[in-house]
């Protein structure tokens, strides 16, 4: 196996994020307690999801410009990994919320209804639904060229419609979720300095891991296509 520099970097950063994330000191807040360490994983998932979706869009645009089929495979694979990270982001968020938001006096399902109304959660659910629709659209078109073209158009259109609303709407509606004012986590005053030294490397590490997974998927698919065309 060949390891290029960014794959090694990803491994080192993730090791650092896991070990450092669990051991390094964190600020003590009465509400969050030690659950604040989840920031290194939960928020990073969403960050890398958005970055991967953005890469997917770039490949869609490239496809429309060049009509090179490889870009279509790339766009699809990045979107797929993005959805996977989004699901992970959801599950880490759910674990976090069950310790901080859920009302211990009520059963879990009773809190669920009110938690789901969070604008950020709605936005995240929408993002996953949109990309689910993207894959269904892909599957419902048989012709390869047309599939690539139509799904690239939908990818760009959906991204352009969706992401501004995800960034804007939470600021218009009341929310429990942190990061309402300004850009969550990008603002330097938001996070304690002790957390920042783990948080930023963690974001980069998870994103690189996502890119790595996607690279493997792309190579697998390219090999499959080659095998398929050789057989014919």
């Amino acid at each position, binding site marked *: 196996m060949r390891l290029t520099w960014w794959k090694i970097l990803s491994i080192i950063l993730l090791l650092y994020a896991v070990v450092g994330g669990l051991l390094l000191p964190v600020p003590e807040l009465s509400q969050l307690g030690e659950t604040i360490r989840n920031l290194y994983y939960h928020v990073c998932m969403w960050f890398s999801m958005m970055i991967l979706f953005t890469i997917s869009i770039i490949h869609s645009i490239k496809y429309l410009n060049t009509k090179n089929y490889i870009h279509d495979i790339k766009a699809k694979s990045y979107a797929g990994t993005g959805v996977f990270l989004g699901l992970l982001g959801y599950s880490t968020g759910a674990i976090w919320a069950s310790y901080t938001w859920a009302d211990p006096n009520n059963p879990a399902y009773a809190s669920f209804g009110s938690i789901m109304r969070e604008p950020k959660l709605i936005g995240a659910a929408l993002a996953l639904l949109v990309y689910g629709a993207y894959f269904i659209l892909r599957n419902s078109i048989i012709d390869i060229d047309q599939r690539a073209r139509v799904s690239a158009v*939908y990818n760009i259109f959906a991204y352009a*419609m*969706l992401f501004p609303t*995800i960034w804007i709407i939470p600021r218009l509606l009341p929310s429990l979720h942190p990061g309402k004012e300004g850009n969550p986590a990008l603002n330097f005053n938001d996070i304690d300095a002790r957390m920042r030294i783990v948080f930023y490397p963690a974001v980069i590490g998870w994103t690189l891991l996502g890119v790595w997974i996607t690279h493997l998927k792309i190579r697998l698919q390219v090999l499959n296509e080659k095998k398929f065309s050789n057989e014919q």
Partner: protein
Amino acid sequence: MLLETRQQHTLYGILLYIASTIFVVYLTIDLPDADTWNAIFWITQLFICINAVAKSFLQESRGRMLYYFTITSPVAFILSKLLYNLLLMVVMSSVNLIVYSAMMGNPTISFFSFCLIGILGGCGLGLIFTMLAAIASKAMQQASLMAILGFPLILPQLMMLVRLSKTAFGEIFNNGIPFQMTLLLVSFDILMIILAVILFPFLWKD
């Protein structure tokens, strides 16, 4: 070009659709409170939009598309479609508003601003679904696909509209927020038109 896209029988079909939808709602709940009234209004609006706008691409036959292909450019075609659907939705929204408030009572405090918001919302929905219908018309199972593609995209806008239309019920906002939201919705509409013009030529070649 615009005149060609007009098809009389679908227009009456949609009018009847509005009337019967509202009648169903009317029979199932009598005189709802303001929040429910608002919610149901937007749901009927959404379904009318899907039915009205979906027709614009899904009913075109292959031959007719080929004919359009030979006589116009894609940009002119999508612009005329957008314009036509925009007008259609303005008409449909006003019809919906009138019938709806006639049958279900009228809890709004400022009916005029609610009308404006309703029509603005109708335009936005019409524009989004025009583009989505163009995309969905390329695939199989078009009608259901359109709902799948459209709902997640339309939800944020719908949320903003429902929120905004609460101004008409006398809910008090911070100064400037209703104006900001209106501006946001208008800019979304403009963004959609620009995107449609850029992206449609890629869908056009068959």
